[in-house]
């Protein structure tokens, strides 16, 4: 067949672009990844302006104050880094699962479970051990807590075909209720919602090295977040297992035909995804409060969905997106005197909707423009 119907030429163009990465194809990929995020930010800025105007303030003043309170001084920036650490873990967790074609809505409870198991193990450790010795134990404990929760959802899908979106949402409720029961019935300090303080292995804060960060919660777990992103990037793009995972994510039937068992990949991907989110719990338990507290996840699991999407499900993009969302979140506190901080919650939701809407739209536009060229 040598006819050149538009249908056929489009197909060959699409194949060329995925198999042989030519220069224009990689340019297209970058455009596809960046443009939706830019569109989303523009839409969020406009919605933000409208909300600020409704509240009778000047958008320019509010946004200036928001920037000054976050990137404008070391304390604010330290808080941004602290929040970005948790969001990097949950965002990476969700991005990782998405690469296997799985929607992990359970990062919220996986994060909490990781923090809970780490704190419980921490209470059993002898007092006063240095963090450099105990950190591997904590990482294993947190990964175990989150990994079990994620793995259950993966196994339910692999074995019974139960859709992971629904099971992870249901597991959120089940696990948070279970943790709430365990904390309330067995572990909590009376009159509070948290466990006793863990007296072993608290990691240094950035302020210990850089005094101008004084008072901010940013801590060494930040380094773990960067390492996790690098590790995930290496695993996904430079190992056979990672290749299998992405193959299942793109086309499970084809991967199965190629000798990969999608079920095994699903279980493994969800376990690792849950473990990543779980390790994120260390940011709070080892770096900030040094105990498990009910509700410490505070929506970071759901915001991680936005982080993963805006970051183009790429580990390095996730880090940038986490910084963005941490800035919006900390910025809300900085402007609370002028506009209720809830307006940043609206902004975050608007960014997610705008990205989700503009990704297929921008992709379609770019493709059709490319066909015309």
């Amino acid at each position, binding site marked *: 067949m040598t006819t050149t119907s538009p249908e056929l030429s489009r197909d060959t163009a699409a194949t060329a672009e995925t198999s042989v990465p030519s220069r224009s194809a990689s340019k297209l990929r970058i455009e596809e990844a960046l443009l939706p995020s830019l569109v989303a930010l523009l839409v969020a800025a406009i919605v933000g302006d409208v909300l600020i105007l*409704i509240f009778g303030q000047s958008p320019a003043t509010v946004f200036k104050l928001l920037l000054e309170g976050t990137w404008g001084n070391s304390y604010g920036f330290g808080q941004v880094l602290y929040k970005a650490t948790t969001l990097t873990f949950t965002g990476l967790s969700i991005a990782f699962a998405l690469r296997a074609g799985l929607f992990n809505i359970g990062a919220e409870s996986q994060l909490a479970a990781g923090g809970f198991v780490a704190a419980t193990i921490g209470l059993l450790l002898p007092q006063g051990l240095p963090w450099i010795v105990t950190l591997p134990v904590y990482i294993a404990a947190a990964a175990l807590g989150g990994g079990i929760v994620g793995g259950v959802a993966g196994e339910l899908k692999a074995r019974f075909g139960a859709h992971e979106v629904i099971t992870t949402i249901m597991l959120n409720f089940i696990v948070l209720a279970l943790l*709430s029961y365990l904390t309330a019935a067995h572990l909590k300090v009376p009159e509070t919602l948290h466990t006793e303080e863990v007296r072993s292995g608290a990691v240094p804060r950035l302020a210990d090295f850089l005094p101008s960060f004084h008072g901010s919660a940013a801590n060494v777990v930040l380094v773990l977040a960067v390492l996790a992103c690098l590790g995930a990037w290496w695993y996904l793009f430079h190992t056979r297992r990672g290749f299998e995972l992405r193959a299942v994510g793109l086309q499970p039937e084809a991967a199965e035909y190629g000798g990969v068992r999608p079920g095994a990949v699903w279980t493994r991907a969800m376990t690792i995804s849950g473990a990543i989110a779980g390790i994120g719990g260390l940011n709070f338990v080892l770096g900030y409060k040094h105990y498990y507290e009910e509700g410490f996840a505070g929506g970071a699991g759901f915001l991680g969905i936005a982080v993963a999407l805006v970051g183009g499900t790429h580990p390095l993009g996730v880090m940038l997106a986490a910084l963005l969302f941490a800035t919006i979140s900390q910025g809300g506190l900085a402007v609370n005197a002028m506009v209720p901080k809830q307006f940043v919650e609206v902004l975050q939701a608007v960014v997610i909707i705008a990205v989700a809407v503009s990704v297929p739209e921008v992709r379609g536009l770019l493709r059709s423009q490319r066909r015309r060229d």
Partner: protein
Amino acid sequence: MAALLFLAQTLRIAIPYLFAAAGGVVTERVGLIGLTLEGYMLGGAFAAALGSYYGHSAWLGVLAGIGGGAALALLYGVSAIRFRADQVVIGIAINLLAIGLTRFFLRLAFGSSSNSPRVAGFGAEQAGSGFLALVSNPMIWLGLLAIPVVAWLLYRTPFGLRIRAVGEHPAAAISVGVPITRIRYGAVLLSGILAGLGGVYLVLDQHQFTDQMTAGRGFIALAATIFGRWDPMRVGIACLLFAAAETLQIQLQGAQLVPSQFVEMIPYVLTIVALAGVVGRAVPPAALGKVAGE
């Protein structure tokens, strides 16, 4: 007497589930994932508080609540149908948006970050909390009708037949001339109105709006939709079952037999059990979640 009280309490708790799950059946039967029910309920609840407070009338609250649920449903519809955005992502975002917007406007309209002032409800004041209060509250009657009406709609009307066709096989529906886009918008708006009414019930029953007052009820309704295998009558029974478990928990609270957290888990555990096929295969509408795929 105790049995009657139990029944009354169960009904009371079940009404918001029945409303929202009726919406859940409609939206999922047309092929759109029902993650947004929680957001519709919250939006409907807040709008009802605004309408009832500023309009000094519970009925204006009902109307406003319908508008609130429908507005969020329209946003979901446009994103998922026109722009083919991922329904899971949009669904989560609309729930976050509903929380953010209601908090923002709670501050703006009522100057509080936790709750609205007292609003008009349906005269349960004199009636107390017994059966008289139940039968004098029109929202209870509407809630009891929600599921049967949806069952009648789905199985006895042309619109319902088209909803089911679009949810099972959109391409076939197009080939016989069904305007599938219009059917989808119709169904999504109807689900927004129904779930919004669930929120309205909460506000008018408690006479005020409180921050995040839906507290996961939309997700329980989604759980009921799945546990009832997308069949209105079974879904209604699932709602009553979940409500009965909650009532039992409330009545046993003093006895401390089972920790409340374990009762909270019941709907969610049952849903996973249903999805895992332990009580018979749960087969969702074939086109669920795939608007782009016709």
